């Protein structure tokens, strides 16, 4: 009974991950993509815990989820520091602005 509830919640989370992937793939700036990837990472942490409940192997999956949460946070902070230095966040219209400046 509860296993089916967990399965339904996990399926809903997977659908929401795919919706967030739209923003992570097509965001206008790089920072939009970072936000999308951060959100996908949070959802994946919850999803790993739900998978642990469904397969009834909680002590293994909780370590994976914990490592994923740490990794997600560190990746976000690292990407932020990198793009704060490089000052180029509009990758698509970078060429257009250069043309405008030269013209």
């Amino acid at each position, binding site marked *: *009974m*509860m296993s089916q*509830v*967990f399965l339904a*919640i996990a399926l*809903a*989370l997977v659908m*929401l991950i795919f*919706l*967030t992937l*739209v*923003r992570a793939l097509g965001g*206008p*700036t790089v*920072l*939009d993509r*970072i*936000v*999308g990837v*951060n*959100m996908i990472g*949070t*959802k994946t*942490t*919850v999803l790993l*815990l*739900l998978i642990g*409940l469904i397969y009834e192997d*909680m*002590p293994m999956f*909780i370590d994976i*989820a*914990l490592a994923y*949460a*740490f990794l997600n*946070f560190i990746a*976000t*902070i690292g990407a*932020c*520091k990198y*793009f*704060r230095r490089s*000052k180029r*966040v509009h990758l698509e219209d970078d060429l257009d602005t250069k043309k405008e400046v030269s013209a």
Partner: protein
Amino acid sequence: MNVIVTFLLVLGVFFFAIGTIGILRLPDFYSRLHAAGKCDTLAATLTVSAIALYNLHDLSFASMLVSWKVFFIVFFIFMASPTATHAITKAALIVGVEPWLKKGARK
């Protein structure tokens, strides 16, 4: 017990859905960040708390240890997600992402 766990899970997924709709539909980087921050903190806290509660349904020492670890994940997300959001906002301000304004509004 099962009713409480299901209620918390459904509430958490509801807030996840709200955050996803916000991150897709809002017009501006900063408002999208607002939606993402709410979603990360509140929804993940609710869902993972529900998982920790369900894990306690047979009271043994091992399951209590596992639940303690799950609550550590909750605590970590509760600390780390606003920090990450703040770091992204600071990076956007330094780089100079334009905020969305009403048409004709003065800067």
